[in-house]
């Protein structure tokens, strides 16, 4: 086993420190920790080791020979990559645009996890998960549909969606194999509004989760495959209803391919909101329910998308919508991201438990989210006391659509 201490054969660690040094000092030199109380993991563990501050400080410590990658590996597991910290950080919020230099905790955590993989400090759960991803080309999500390319389109049964075309719908793994009501609802909404779209030939996972867990090469392979498939089926535009995929296609893929990336990426919730606004999709069925909305981290914090979902909720006739503003929700999370449910399911359960408790406190009968990855932990935490629905599923009801699949 090679010695990864910085004073030994620590080449990989040295390179890592050099690459991330400026990010590290950007945070370390301030030390002010405004991130701490918005971090969903910190709210639960209260352990300073799990703070974005520590994530950056650890890199400075590695530079100074105080810590090495195996000392910090467990700390870096404790992150959902929700992006609250890096947005809330005054180095982003007040001056990130001024200096063109912002806090990038998500990238730092991803990169450290990749270093962990490269230096023999992998986590067992993530290792197993990504081995199965290699085999099946999709996330090994637990569900009724077996995860494999053979079944990747089972969710679309009876919908007559063609293969290929200028607009291609990308269906998230969790939605393809587990929460199929999500993907069916979205597809049926598009069809009702007369939007033409097709599916990929061979849809692999976007590669985002692999990258989040530190499997950068695997993520690249997936990106290359998907882009080649898009080109092969004539796609100019990718419709991405799932926020995780939207981030992969608007951030990860451009970073991999540079200028050789010609696709338009359309965010699902913004498309549906526009269709309703333009009258191409009519919401005529009243929905007499009282709901609140969960701002998914990867929409609200990571991409600044919080208006379109609310516009849709307000357009649903009969709906009583008790809102919690999107800035308060910077500190909310389902705990489902960043591979956390695989390695630390008890922390995910606590995070989602608290999110559901907040919704329950508003006396609503449903919590509406806009991210399928959040809906599994939130549903588990709700334990039947509250319904957890996806926004597309709710809009489909209001549009008079029979979705016909397990929610």
């Amino acid at each position, binding site marked *: 086993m090679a010695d990864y201490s910085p004073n030994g054969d620590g080449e990989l660690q040295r390179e890592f420190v050099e690459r991330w040094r400026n990010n590290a000092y950007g945070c370390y*030199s301030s030390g002010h920790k405004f991130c701490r109380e918005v971090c969903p993991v910190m709210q639960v563990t209260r352990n300073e080791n799990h703070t974005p501050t520590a994530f950056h400080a650890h890199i400075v410590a590695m530079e100074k020979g105080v810590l090495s990658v195996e000392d910090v590996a467990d700390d870096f597991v404790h992150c959902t990559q929700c992006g609250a910290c890096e947005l809330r950080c005054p180095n982003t919020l007040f001056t990130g645009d001024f200096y063109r230099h912002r806090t990038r905790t998500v990238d730092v955590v991803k990169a450290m996890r990749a270093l962990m993989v490269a230096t023999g400090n992998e986590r067992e759960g993530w290792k197993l998960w990504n081995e199965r991803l290699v085999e099946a080309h999709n996330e090994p999500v637990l569900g009724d549909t077996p995860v494999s390319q053979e079944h990747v389109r089972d969710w679309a049964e009876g919908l007559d969606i063609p293969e290929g075309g200028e607009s291609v719908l990308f269906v998230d793994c969790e939605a393809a194999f587990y929460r199929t009501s999500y993907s069916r609802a979205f597809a049926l909404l598009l069809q009702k509004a007369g939007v033409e779209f097709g599916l990929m030939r061979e849809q692999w996972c976007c590669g985002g989760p692999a990258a989040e867990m530190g499997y950068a090469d695997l993520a690249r392979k997936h990106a290359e495959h998907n882009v080649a498939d898009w080109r092969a089926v004539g796609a100019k535009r990718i419709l991405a209803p799932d926020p995780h995929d939207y981030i992969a296609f608007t951030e990860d893929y451009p970073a991999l391919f540079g200028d050789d990336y010609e696709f338009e990426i359309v965010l699902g919730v913004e498309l549906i909101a526009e269709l309703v606004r333009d009258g191409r999709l009519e919401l005529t069925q009243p929905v007499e329910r009282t709901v609140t909305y969960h701002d998914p981290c990867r929409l609200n914090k990571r991409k600044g998308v919080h208006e379109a979902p609310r516009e849709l909720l307000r357009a649903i006739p009969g709906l009583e919508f008790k809102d919690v503003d999107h800035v308060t929700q910077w500190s909310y999370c389902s705990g489902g991201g960043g591979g956390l449910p695989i390695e630390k399911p008890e922390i995910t359960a606590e995070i989602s438990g608290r999110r559901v408790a907040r919704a329950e406190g508003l006396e609503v009968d449903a919590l509406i989210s806009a991210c399928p990855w959040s809906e599994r932990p939130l549903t588990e935490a709700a334990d039947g006391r509250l319904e957890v629905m996806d926004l597309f599923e709710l809009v489909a009801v209001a549009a008079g659509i029979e979705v016909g699949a397990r929610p």
Partner: protein
Amino acid sequence: MSVAFKSAVDDAVVDELRAIIGDDDRVLPNVSSRASRTRVPAPFPVHRWSEFMPDVAVLPVSAEEVSEVVKLANRLRIPVVPRAGGTGLSDGAVPLRGGICVDVKLMNKIHEIDLDDRTVTVGPGINMLKLNEELRPHGVFYPDDPASYPCSLVGGRIGTGGWSLLGSRFGHTRDLVISMQVVLPTGEIAEIGDGGGRKLRKSSTGLTLKQLFTGHQGTLGITTEATLELVPRPELEFAAFFAFDDYMKAHRTTGALTRSGLATLAGVVLFDEWKLRYLRRDDEAYIPQPPWVQAVVAVAMYGTRAEVEPASKVVMELGRADGGKYLGDEISEGDWASRHDRYATPLHGRTKDGQVVPMSWHCEDAALNYSVLPKVREEWHAIVERYIERYGIFDDWGMFCYTNGAYKPWADYLVEIDVGIWEQKLDDENWAGWVACKREIAEVALKHGGSITACHGATREGDAELVPTEMGSAWPVVKRIKRALDPNNIMNPGKQMLDEAYK
């Protein structure tokens, strides 16, 4: 990696701690846990990081656990360093001799909200912003509002004797804490207040101890619970910013405002010429301001509409009576709102050739009287200029003066000079230079009848050596108290020259 223990902590001690805490996840002897509980935002000799690490961290959930840990520390003569948020601007939470870091963040519950007797009782690990989110539905708030408001914790506010931006209206930490439960340096659990029951504000029975236990910098014990004031939530906030072509006009206007007798005045802030120059580099409010703008005075008020609205007209008159020009609604509103998370941004650092580099932030917080503010400003800038010339890794970010008297806007001022330090370039030589600069700055404050620190604490090199001087004839009393309460010198030892109590 392994970093040797500095104190009598060893594997046997860690086992004893595990037995006390009963949960191995809350006893952390591993090196990344220790490294994460070393520095605070104050300038830090990063090149000597391992010298300041605790030997082990514990995350207690009850006063009983804290008490047992402290008793063990006494038995074995192991230093104990309490740490709440670790967001302090002096070195109160930085271990000097290894030992046990008692990290109170898990003690963050709201134990009770009493709307009749107007108190909220909390653990020391709760943050004020999070507390206020829970208090809001009841129409009350806890207005302890430092620049670290979104991240500092109640325990640390008590330990440092914190200052609040809104102190002239609502009081500072010391005024807002009614009583507390403290684990004394010998491990007993004591209820400390003004006298009387937990929710009583003012008494003359026995000896009044509350003052002593706010601002001790963790040297007299560990707060494990606190009962706090519930203040009516303000109906209205008013803020106004005024620009001046001359510092003395701004200084006079500050005096006029603070002596106005307006009861809803929450704070007045005076920005000097160097601060304006610094703000012009990178603050959108100031970038386009004309060159004649040399100083600024900011004012804020909070209260009922019936009081604030008429008072705001008086403020506008006073603000403009001596050449002050209103900076406009957008700046007044926007800049005031940003004051609640006003720690310095590293990239505001500039090298001598104007290059942007991340600098860590020294925030001076002397307490001084109105009459000496202009002179102190001249002397301080001259000092910093000399050190910039000599060492090249510092940067002068200008000065603020803030109202410092609880409920008394006319009283004294927290005087801040902000100095950037290019941390990546720190070595023993320029660190020693920094300490010398710090000491010179503190000496000026003392020379002018002030205090080294309004709220951060004089716990670090450059300040601590001067504590006996500042205390003067009170110093022997301070030493006797410290020795009486902490006979084994285990509670945050080495801070504020209190080791002298044991000589």
